[in-house]
């Protein structure tokens, strides 16, 4: 087989990888904000739940989380009589998203805490409620702070999708492995996916850079 013949199956795999990355990054972003803000809550139940989520998903391996959601959860569901079988895509998106969200939540928390206390005092003096102060004053200043770390996490997430091949998801790594088994042409196949992952990572880095510019426009004027 010629290397060009690998292109079609590999690009099909790449398309799965892209979808996995996009969906799990969205899930991750939602988790990041929900639990990052939750960790700063004065409500102990919300705070406790957020801390538990962050520590559990940061403190266990992604591979184990993936296997747990895909293999163990259905069995646990069986035991209590609920059908918790997840399609591979759902299990992959969920595991990746929850995992990256736990790291993202710490980024969100740190960025919110880096907003100067005097900003909250000014907000209070103008009679904003704590909720308004968070959404209108603190978060818009914190989000540009988060962007470089978010960029790292998004690229990390892309590379982590390769683990999803282990629950028989037909992503780029999975397809590559299949071709390799078939042809024994390891060098060509692995070199090709190396460049494909790298290309996708560059696109993500570029997109995150644009996003960073968009949310931080006010930081660049007048300096």
């Amino acid at each position: 087989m010629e290397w060009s013949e690998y292109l079609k199956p590999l690009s099909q795999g790449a398309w799965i990888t892209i979808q996995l990355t996009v969906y799990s990054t969205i899930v991750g972003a939602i988790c990041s904000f929900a639990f990052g803000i939750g960790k700063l809550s004065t409500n102990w139940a919300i705070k406790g739940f957020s801390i538990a989520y962050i520590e559990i998903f940061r403190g266990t391996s992604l591979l184990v989380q993936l296997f747990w959601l895909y293999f163990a959860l259905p069995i646990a569901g069986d035991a209590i009589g609920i059908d918790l079988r997840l399609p591979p895509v759902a299990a992959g998106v969920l595991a990746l998203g929850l995992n990256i969200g736990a790291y993202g939540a710490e980024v969100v928390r740190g960025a919110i805490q880096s907003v100067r206390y005097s900003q909250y005092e000014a907000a209070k003096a103008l009679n904003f409620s704590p909720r308004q102060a968070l959404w209108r004053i603190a978060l818009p200043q914190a989000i540009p702070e988060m962007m470089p770390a978010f960029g790292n996490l998004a690229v990390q997430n892309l590379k982590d999708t390769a683990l999803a091949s282990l629950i028989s998801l037909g992503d780029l790594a999975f397809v590559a492995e299949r071709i390799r088994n078939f042809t024994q042409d390891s060098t060509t196949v692995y070199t090709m996916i190396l460049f494909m992952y790298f290309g996708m990572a560059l696109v993500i880095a570029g997109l995150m850079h644009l996003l960073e510019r968009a949310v931080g426009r006010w930081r660049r004027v007048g300096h």
Partner: protein
Amino acid sequence: MTEPIIKFDKVVKKYGTHVVLDELDFDVKPGEKVTIIGPSGSGKSTVLRILMTLEEISSGVIHVDGEPLWHEERNGTLKPASEAHLKKMRAKLGMVFQQFNLFPHMSVMRNITEAPINVLKLPKAEARDRAEQLLKMVGLTEHAHKFPSQLSGGQQQRVGIARALAMRPKIMLFDEPTSALDPELVGEVLNVIGSLAAEHDLTMLLVTHEMRFAREVSDRICFFDRGKVKEQGTPEQIFSNPKEARTREFLKAVLEG
């Protein structure tokens, strides 16, 4: 005699064992312009921060505009104030900060209109009209679309004043409004505060080291020392004929420094 609009009654403020306000009694009449002077650590900024509800008191009672600030009357006794009560009381006060504390991610216009629109629920057009008037008053009409980082310190502080006034407070608190400014920018901010001092209804409480300015605009000067009012009187009395040795010492140090 008119009732005071601000009344401190044996107010104590402590940080741990450090006493900042020591059974402070202190009154301000409606419309009065009062300047608080005193050495650092005398509790003068703390008075303003407590009034703006940025700091709690340790004991005592404060009345603002006839109502207890940090307490609520329930069944004839004073209980600690609820957030709803504090919110109502805060609406009576506006504050200008030493470091301006503008919102860096908002234009000048939005800095001024954000609270009137979202807190007072004013229609946007009305909030903008009001902001334009205020910007005219502080001489920054041309700068409405700019971000704070594009302005000089003096301009930022004038926005800070306009932002506080946009909430139509009865009482304005100025916490060392010119202390963070380069000397050549102090004048423009004092001019604005001076023109406000001419407004009859507005009660003003000013903490400053600008003694000449304090003398010009104040009805009364209070000299704070160790958490108490050591001496107070008209600017004439305090600056020309201070009775207390501590006041004389302080003024000598400040005016010669």
